[in-house]
Structure formats: C-alpha cells, structure tokens
C-alpha cells in the first residue's frame, strides 16, 4: 500500500479587539444583548456609508509586523457579494485583490524540531452577523444578531506548509500566543474571536503535485481542529487506497459524531462578484506610520524564550511555559527585577501561582499576589527566615488576603529562630534533660539525631531553623 502525506493550509479569521466596529462607531464588544450594538450603518440601511476605523488598520498592521509580513503601503477594500440574512448589505467588505499584508511566517516546535510555516497573505474584512436558530416552540424561526456585523477581522492565510493535524494545532497555538502578545485579540475559539478553516489534500509520499483539496469548516476549538484534520486525512487516505478519487468540496466538522460531512461541492461554488468598494478610497500607509507601529511590537515569544533559556538558565520546557502568555513572562521578569532568583521564582510561578490562576480563571496580575510578593516570598525562604513549607502557607494566605508575605510572617510569628546563641541555649537544655540518649548518640547511635531535633523544635514552639539545629546538635554531641 502507498503511504500518503497530508498537505494542509489554514485560513484563520481573527477578530481585532478594537473598541468600535470597522466601519461605524458601534461597540465591537462581545457578549452584549442581541442587537444592542447596532446602527443604520452596520445594519446596511439605505443611504449609509462605511468609514474605516483607523484603530483596526493599526492592529492589522501590528499583526503583519509580528508575523514578519511585507506591509503593503497601498491596499484596497473590495465587495464580496452573496445573499444571506446575517450579511446586512448583501456584500462583505474585504480585501480581495490588494491585501494589507503579503508573506510572513511563524515557527512551530514539533517533536522532530522547529518548522517554519509560511504565510500567503493577511487581509482586513468585516465580520457578518450571527444566525441563531430557534428551539422548541420557535424552532420554525431563525433569528439574526447584528452585534457581530462589521466587527473588524483579519484573515491570516497560510501556505500549504502544514503536514499533520498536530502541526496544525501547534500553528494555531503559536498564532494565538503571538496575537495575544501584541494585544490585538483574545483569540478565543469558543467565543469565535479566532476561527479556523482548513484546506486539506493528501498525496503519495515523494509526489510533488498537489492532490484535490477539501475545505473543512466549523471547527470551534483547538482540539476540534486536530480531530477534524485527523479524520479528514484518514477519510481521504481510505478513498485513495481503495482506488477512488477525492471530490473538491467544502465539508463541515460534526463534533458530536466526530466526522466531516459534505456541505457543497465546487460545481455549486459561489461567484462572489468581487470589485473595489467605491465608497472607500484605497488605504495608503506611510513609512512613518509603519515605523511607529513597529515600535509598539514587544519582544515576541520565540526570542523571549531563547533569552530566558540563556539569561536565566531555564529549561526549554520551563521557558516555553513562561513565555506562553506575555503576562506570565512579564510577571516573571517583574519579580526578577526585585529579587534575582530565576530558578526559584520560575518554580513558584509555574507550580503555585499558575495553579491558582487556572483554578480561578484570573489573569496572573489579578490573582492576589504581585510580582513583588513572589520575589519577597522566595527571598524569605532562601534567607532561611521561613521554611519552604511555611512558604506555601504564606502564599496561600497572601492569595486569600492580598497581604504581603512579610506582613503575614510577622503577624503569625512565623519567622524562624535562626539566632545561634538562642538555639545553643535550647540545645544545651534538651541535651541536659536527656543524658542517656545523649550518651547513646555519642557512642554511635546517630539515628537519635532526629529525636533531639524534634525536641529542640518543640521547645522553640516550631520556630527553630531545622538546618541550624542540626548543625548545633552535631557540634554539641560530638
């Protein structure tokens, strides 16, 4: 049997998080009451005209800059025509012929190493409204929510460089990380602020020519994307293995049944009748503007990861986790500025703080402890003022109350007894009170050390620094 390789390209729609919609001043916020963020313009009323939101242009350029695209100083908005109730003007304003960005790429880390996935283009467009199909008594009706109509989008189109479902998922995750870094979108697939269509074909390994491609839609989570592509590769492989041929078509992912279903074939494809929108002049960008936007792009995850590994001697895995969200990495470096203990601070963030962040669904900067608190906590532990175990209690208390670790330690009297003179006194007292055990220890019964340590700590009401107690006991009982 032949073995096949998959050839996959992704088209990703990302909602830009501007305050207003792309062609009117309505709020672009997600989750409002249906049809509360609408006006005659985004409802396509007679006589209305689009006016381009400059903030959306800035964000689209930032996306292009972060992904290494060539920003086009001249781009044009076109009309894409089709009838559907969620499309108020019966055309979508998009960029067909002259998109705002060309080229670009991003790197994914696969098991077999880093792979570069090239981009074809990025263009700007407006979102459509949302159809909500009635249930129960109103099952015969469909409703339209125009809140989403005209929310700004960029469509990021990859080259067919992706070779597996796993790579597709990694590509999307990397894209999401980068876009969140530059704060252009929250990239939430469940809420639809990131949506992905996949073009998939397969060909015998070694074959240069592309097979017939199938487009998959309706995948609304990263996991669905992976599952749908896995399914589709298997489906196509089976057809070709049995001597069949692939039909060029669009298929929908049915998540409940875990399969893709044919939606429309090429013969029924739309003719979208693209032409330049006469209501909008071509979009021109100056070098100055592009330069200004370049300065807003922060250090991106790939280079930040490399720097963390080099500067802070973190493992690739730890660095990956810390740079996976810009907030995590910022929090980490804010803490390091206050107390430079890269390994321990990284561990505290990854093991304790992120657990709380994930549990509570909060952002890392709102989880109850500031970077300074983590720095202080690690410093208290490293200086021996409190034990690691006490540190965890202090952390929990800090998350709960918002108090600083130092305040908690002093309030609870937690700080360790590390005064050698005082400890010496306690040790003397304990040894004197247990002369026979002292003799047995001296004659070689070393396991009794634990017995004495326990008594000393008890005598100090738990405050004695165990490490120092050990040292003093060994010296005393020599």
């Amino acid at each position, binding site marked *: 049997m032949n073995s096949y390789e998959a050839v996959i390209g992704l088209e990703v729609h990302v909602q830009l998080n501007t305050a207003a919609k792309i062609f009117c001043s309505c709020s672009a916020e997600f989750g409002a009451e249906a049809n509360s963020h609408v006006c*005659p313009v985004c*409802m*396509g*009323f*007679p*006589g*209305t*005209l*689009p*006016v*381009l939101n400059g903030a959306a242009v800035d964000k689209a350029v930032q996306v292009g800059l972060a992904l290494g695209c060539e920003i086009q100083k001249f781009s044009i908005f076109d*009309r894409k*025509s089709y*009838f559907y*109730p969620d499309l*108020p*003007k*019966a*055309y979508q304003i998009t960029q067909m012929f002259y998109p705002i960005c060309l080229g670009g790429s991003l790197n994914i880390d696969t098991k077999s190493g880093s792979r570069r996935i090239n981009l074809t283009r990025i263009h700007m467009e407006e979102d459509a409204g949302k159809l909500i199909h009635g249930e129960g008594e109103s099952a*015969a009706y469909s409703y*339209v929510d125009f809140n989403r109509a005209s929310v700004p989008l960029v469509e990021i189109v990859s080259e067919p460089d992706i070779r597996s479902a796993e790579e597709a998922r990694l590509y999307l995750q990397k894209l999401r990380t980068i876009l969140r870094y530059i704060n252009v979108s929250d990239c939430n697939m469940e809420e639809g602020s990131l949506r992905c269509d996949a073009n998939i074909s397969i060909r015998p390994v070694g074959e240069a020519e592309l097979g017939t491609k199938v487009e998959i839609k309706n995948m609304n989570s990263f996991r669905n994307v992976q599952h749908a592509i896995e399914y589709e590769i298997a489906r196509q492989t089976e057809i070709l293995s049995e001597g069949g041929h692939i039909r060029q078509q669009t298929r929908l992912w049915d998540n409940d049944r875990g399969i893709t279903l044919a939606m429309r074939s090429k013969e029924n494809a739309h*003719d*979208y*009748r*693209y*032409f330049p*929108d*006469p*209501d*909008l*002049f071509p979009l021109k960008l100056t070098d100055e503007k592009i330069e200004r936007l370049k300065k807003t792009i922060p250090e991106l995850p790939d280079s930040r990861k490399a720097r963390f590994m080099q500067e802070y001697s973190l493992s690739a895995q730890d660095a990956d986790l810390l740079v996976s969200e810009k907030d995590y990495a910022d929090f980490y470096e804010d803490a390091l500025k206050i107390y430079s203990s890269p390994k321990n601070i990284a561990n505290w963030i990854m093991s304790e703080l992120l657990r709380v962040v994930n549990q509570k669904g909060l952002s890392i900067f709102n989880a109850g402890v500031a970077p300074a608190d983590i720095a202080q906590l690690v410093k208290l532990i490293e200086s021996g003022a409190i034990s690691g175990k006490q540190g965890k209690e202090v952390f929990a208390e800090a998350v709960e109350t918002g108090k600083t670790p130092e305040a908690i330690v002093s309030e609870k009297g937690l700080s360790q007894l590390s005064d050698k003179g005082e400890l010496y006194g306690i040790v003397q007292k304990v040894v004197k009170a247990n002369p026979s055990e002292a003799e047995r220890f001296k004659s070689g019964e070393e396991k009794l050390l634990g017995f004495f340590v326990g008594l000393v700590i008890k005598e100090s009401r738990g405050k004695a620094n165990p490490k120092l107690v050990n040292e003093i006991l060994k010296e005393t009982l020599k």
Partner: protein
Amino acid sequence: MDNILGLTLAELSALLERKELSSRELIAFYIDRIERFDGKLLAYLYKDAESALKRAEQIDDRRAKGEKLPRSAGLPCALKDLIVTSDMPTTCASKMLEGFISPFDATAAKNMREAGYISLGKLNMDQYAMGSSGESSYFQKTVNPWDYSRVPGGSSSGSASAVAARLTPVAISSDTGGSIRQPAGFCGVTGLKPTYGRVSRFGVVSYASSLDQLGPITNSVEDAAFVMDVLGLNDPMDSTSAPSKTDFYANLQRAGDSLKGVRLGLPEGHLSDLAPGLKAAVENALKDCEKLGAEIVNVDFPLAAKGLPVYQMIANAEAASNLAKYDGVKYGHRANIAELEEMYSITRREGFGPEVKKRIILGTYILLEGQYEEYYRRAMRIRRLIRKDYDAAFKKCDLIVGPVSAGVAFRFGDKTISAMEMYLNDLFTVLLNLNGSCGITVPCGFGEDNLPVGLQFQGDMFAEDALLRAAHIYQQSTDWHKRIPALLENGVER
C-alpha cells in the same frame, strides 16, 4: 404676494430678516401653489403642509424674539425622494421602499434643516434614479410644466418639474449620469452637479457610488450658489467627502458682468445631430457668451463614444451591488413566503421595476468571474483615460460648454424613441460624472414646439466658483430663467 416668484433666495431671505414677509406666509404661498397645481404635475410624492407651517411659525416666533437666525431660516425647499429623512417616507419611487421611514436623516437633509430651510416634501423621480424621463417611478409620472404631454426628464423628474412650476424655489437632487442637468434642461431651470465629494452622500440612497452626487435645482445660478453654502460642508460620515466650502455665494457676488478672458471649450461634434430648434438656441447662447467677452475654443474628446458604455458598465455594476441589500430581511417590501431563497427572489421580483431589474441583471453579469476583467476592469481603465482627456481639455480652456441633450423634452411613451436613443440622451452628461468634476445647466432659450433648451457648462475638479461665475454672468444677460410656464388649474391655464 405674486412677485415672490420673481425673487431670489437671497432677496426672500432679506424680506424675512426685515420681517416684511413671514416664513408662514412664504410657506403657505408655496403650499397653496402645490395644492393648486401638483394634482396635474405630480411632482411631489409626499407633502406635509402641517409640519411645514408649524416649523415656519416656530422660526417666525424665534425671529420675533430677536434671535439671531441663519440667513436661510424660514426658506422653503424640497428633496428628491432618495434623500433619507426621519420625518417623511423615502421611497426612491419604488414599491420596494414604499412607506419606508429612515431611522436617521441624510447629512444634506440635516444641513438644510439646521440652516433653517423648511422642507415642503419629497419629490418624484425615476425608480432608484434609473432613467431619463421620470417614467420608471412606481407611483406616478411627473409631467413637464411647459407641456403636460411631455416628460420632465430624469431621473430628477419631480425636482425639475417642481422648480420650473415654482412649487418650490429649490430642490435638492442627485446626478449620477445627468439626472440633475438633463431634466433642468428639459424644464428650463438651473441645475448644478457639484464635483464628486463636494456634497455628502451619507443618507442618499446609492445608485452608483462612484458617480452619485447631490446638487441643487433652482431658478437661477445665484440661488444654486446660495444653497451650496449649506450643502458644501465636509461630512465625517462619508469617506469621499471633500473639505468644507461655504463661500460659493460670497464669491459669486464678485462675479462682475464680463466673460473676458474666459476660454469656453466646445467639444468636437457636439453641435451635430442636434434637433434644429435646440441647436439654434444653443448656438445663440454661444454667441451671447462671445458677446460677453468669452473666447470659444475647440476641444476634443477622442474617447467620447466610449463614454456611454463605460458609464453603463460602472453604473450597472455598482447598482447591482448597492441594490443587493433590498432582500426583505430588515426593511422595505417583503414577500410573504417562508422559505428563505424564495422569499429573497419574490421580494425582489415584486419590489423592483423593470428598468431596475434590467440594470441589476446587467451589473451582476459584468461582475461575474471571467467577465470582470473583460468589462469592469476595462471600463475602469477607459474611465481613467477619459479623465486624462478632461485634463488635456482643461489645459486649453477654462470651462467646457455645449448642449445638455440632443433634443427637447419628448412625449410620454414616445415609441419612436428607442431604448438606445433614450440612452443617447445621456451622451452629453455622463462623461462629466466619469470625470467627477462639476457642471451646470442653465436655460438658454426655446427650441422645437416652444420647449426649453438648456446650455451646459462643465468645470474642472472643485472649480465650482469659476463654473458658477460664468453661468451666472451668462444668465444675468438673459431672461430665460425668469420665464414661468402657464400651469393648469381645474383645466384652466394660470
């Protein structure tokens, strides 16, 4: 009161300011004329006498209290029925938008109201501004006040007819391929198409977005300039809107009375194939211009013959796209059918008239994959070349001059006029829309069957001041614009 008809807007404004005339009297005067004559003329699609009188009284009250009012406060106007208004229906003379009331006001309507103009109503037109005779209106056929068996021209049929019959001193209209200038010529009134971008298109129901432009139809160039000071404001709601200009009227006051030094370009061939009576009137007007000091020079538009097909490609393509939104989902007519695709299709079949359907079908075809390159892209390329011809012409002359139509107003349903001949009536007007610059029609005499003839001046981009000046100087040397047609009231001429 009857001498009101002979007064300019500025003169009426002065009477109002001096309280020698109240706005209520002025508005009541026009409402009376509408009531007496519009039954036969059919220029208005919607009238609201009560609201107009109420607004007039409010303005009179404010004036009585000594409030400082804009100079146009209390003057009447009317709007072509594609300018959306929240206080009156906007139908585009179509069944599709029958009874439609916009949730907002067009910028032009808002600017007029804020300047104190009082709207008498909405004026008939060719359906969706598609036509040259007014006959494609779904509701009624406006007649030409000079001969009720003749069309007033189109698409601004109601506007030109109403202004000629003095049922309003000013109508705000639109010109996509001649829709202001041609009916102004047919009805013997003054019609200005400003430069594309000069007047906001926000709230103007789109026909062909890259060609549509609002402008006034009035009884004189002076009145056109007076109104333009209100219409010429920049509008952030229209991306193609030009910077504000509000000194049209002030500049016209310094016009003088000589055309000395003005070079008028006469396009090659524009005087051939004209109706003889119309031709004579135009030639006399050109002689008048020369007597006023103008120099007539020849200019050439080698691509003129391509103008009409290029215009049709672009206008129909844009129209097909602009009119796609009328799908019955959100507003306007909806066929009572449950299935979606069928609802769309029957809604549009019922809502649009035959001329509109024809243009949508043509425009849709032109934009199909495969046809787009062949037709639309090529049309856009020729459009750019036509603009170069204009640039070249304006190096040889200051303004272009010539007829605005090949013949005088024709009879309703004249079967001797083919569809192609109807389109040929656009020939003298569409090139200017493709160029985007400004033009004006002024009455210049009477031709066949004693019907009015218009003279067209065309200016360069944003050169309204020069255009208005020349047209004004010519007009002041004539009295064509002061002729008022005899109107029928209960079968009796008045």
